[in-house]
């Protein structure tokens, strides 16, 4: 995910492992083991039982829950709205986060560290609390809603509370620090001189940024986007608190089925469908990264 930097001694490094003691090959396995066990117990196992639950109807195996979902335009709309929320939130955090992360990473001032802490400060406050904060601003009398009206973007009576737009704004704020942090790390790992080299070779600063820095940051940008996207489509607190009943998304529907209606098999089916979308996305993402490796090696 980190952008490649020129490795001066690359051709020699492979040989080093071969000449090392026999113990070495087992070390990676041992290092992976704790993580894998935790992952298996806390993620894979529950996930499999969730999947199993989604195929139960009454006392027998059934695909009824999936049929119900697939055969009903309402649920497609729900899924579509969820994915839309994910995409739009990702785009907003990317557009806002990219310049911030870039400037922070390139900043030489000693304020840079302080500003980074400020940027990530919201992470220390739970998403629920932040969503409550937005609620205050989003009610009809709230600052943000009034501002929207004052700017002529909406006619009164208007409030962002209980709207999809409100959810998008709040969610973008909740997830922005994650995007900034991810991109900050990526930009920090890209040598500033590469951009200067491009400029000295005749590239305008914007072109140098595009051809070199952003190109090298592509993996990290994809990673940050995937992170924000998957959190945006699965997050519950913000859509539930800010969106209320009208911004119904997959997560709130899963909650409704699990908690309010106790229809766990259908909730499991909804969760599995959402998971499939995240997995597909992660796979596509992996392919894109692989594809990048191929273009690099291409003659």
């Amino acid at each position: 995910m980190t952008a490649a930097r020129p490795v001066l001694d690359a051709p020699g490094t492979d040989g080093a492992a071969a000449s090392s003691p026999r113990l070495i090959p087992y070390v990676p396995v041992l290092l992976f083991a704790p993580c894998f066990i935790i992952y298996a117990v806390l993620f894979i196992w529950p996930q499999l039982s969730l999947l199993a639950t989604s195929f139960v109807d009454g006392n027998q195996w059934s695909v009824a829950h999936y049929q119900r979902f697939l055969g009903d335009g309402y649920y497609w709309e729900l899924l579509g709205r969820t994915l839309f929320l994910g995409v739009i939130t990702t785009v907003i955090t990317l557009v806002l986060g990219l310049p911030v992360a870039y400037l922070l990473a390139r900043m030489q001032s000693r304020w840079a560290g302080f500003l980074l802490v400020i940027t990530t400060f919201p992470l220390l406050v739970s998403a629920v609390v932040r969503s409550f904060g937005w609620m205050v601003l989003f009610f009809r009398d709230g600052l943000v809603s009034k501002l929207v009206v004052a700017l002529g973007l909406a006619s009164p009576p208007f409030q962002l509370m209980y709207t999809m737009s409100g959810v998008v704004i709040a969610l973008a704020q909740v997830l922005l620090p994650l995007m900034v942090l991810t991109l900050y790390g990526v930009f920090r790992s890209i040598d500033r001189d590469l951009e200067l080299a491009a400029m000295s070779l005749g590239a305008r600063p914007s072109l140098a940024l595009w051809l070199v820095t952003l190109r090298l940051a592509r993996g990290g940008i994809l990673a940050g986007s995937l992170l924000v996207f998957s959190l945006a489509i699965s997050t519950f607190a913000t859509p539930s608190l800010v969106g209320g009943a009208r911004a119904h998304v997959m997560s709130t529907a899963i909650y409704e089925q699990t908690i309010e209606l106790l229809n766990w098999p259908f909730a499991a089916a909804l969760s599995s469908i959402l998971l499939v979308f995240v997995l597909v996305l992660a796979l596509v993402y992996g392919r894109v990264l692989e594809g990048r490796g191929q273009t690099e090696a291409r003659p």
Partner: protein
Amino acid sequence: MEIVIENLAKVYGNAHAVRDFSVTIAKGEMVALLGPSGCGKTTTLRMVAGFIKPSAGRIVVRGRDLTGLPPHKRDTGLVFQNYALFPHLTVAENIAFGLRRRGVPAAERDTRVANMIATMQLTGLADRLPRQLSGGQQQRVAVARALVINPSILLLDEPFSNLDAKLRESTGLELRRIQRELGLTSIFVTHDQNEAMAIADRIAVMNGGAVEQIGSAVDIYERPRTRFVADFIGSANFLSATVEARDGNVVTLRHGLGVSVLPVEGQAFDKGRSVTLMVRPECVAIHPAAAEAGLGTIETISYQGSSAHIFVKLRDGDRTMLVERHGRELAGLEVGKTVDLNVKAQDLTLFAA
């Protein structure tokens, strides 16, 4: 003049990274910026490249004032200390980068890249990525990338510092050959005096942000203008001396090795003044002497093959003199032996303090 740099300065807060840097460089000339770490070499080079905005001064190339221009409009070829090769582009793509930005047609571009690959002995590596190259190969790609655009100035920031000693010398000479062939006006930064002396036409010795002396390697070595330059370039023996007499522009000096008569200019050398003399180790003659007659005793002999460094402790005071001899001319010289030392007046350099 090809390049004129006038009174260039850079101030960070109240720290002067570069002060009052002026130099004129002729077409095809190669000038080295030499100096200890932190003396402002990189800062100067980056001001010429356009990455750092000067606090004062002008940079004029071929009559065009570049001072306010952004880097991409300066037409400079820059070789970075860490090469800064684009890791996602192949060798050929790296080299073609500048040509693409200049809109060179594809056919011409391919020819020029191919020629450059041949010139820089990178044949067969065109499709490799930088990380698949050795350090020396990467360095050659970096140079090729800067040269191929035919820049009006070639700037190199410690281009050899990541190479091992052997490769450093051969690469340096190779670069020099190509630079001559192409008639490229260049500035290169180094803190290695041997490199600077071997490659550059002229050397600008910098200290604390300021230029101490600009001149050919011979000038700087044989006629250092300041004590700093004398000390920094090569090895130097410093002797304190007193002006015994002054007759017009000729002074008689008494120092640890005897009395010398030198021509001078300026007021600083009136009778009675304390001054400093510098003599290079290879200019000191050394002879075995009788125990009570000699000026000093041999403390250490460091044999280096072609030459040997002999450290002589002078009898008066605890000053040690460095004497360099041919490696085969050590007959009669042993540690502990008493020796006599002589210097010729023409080998002495006189400093006011």
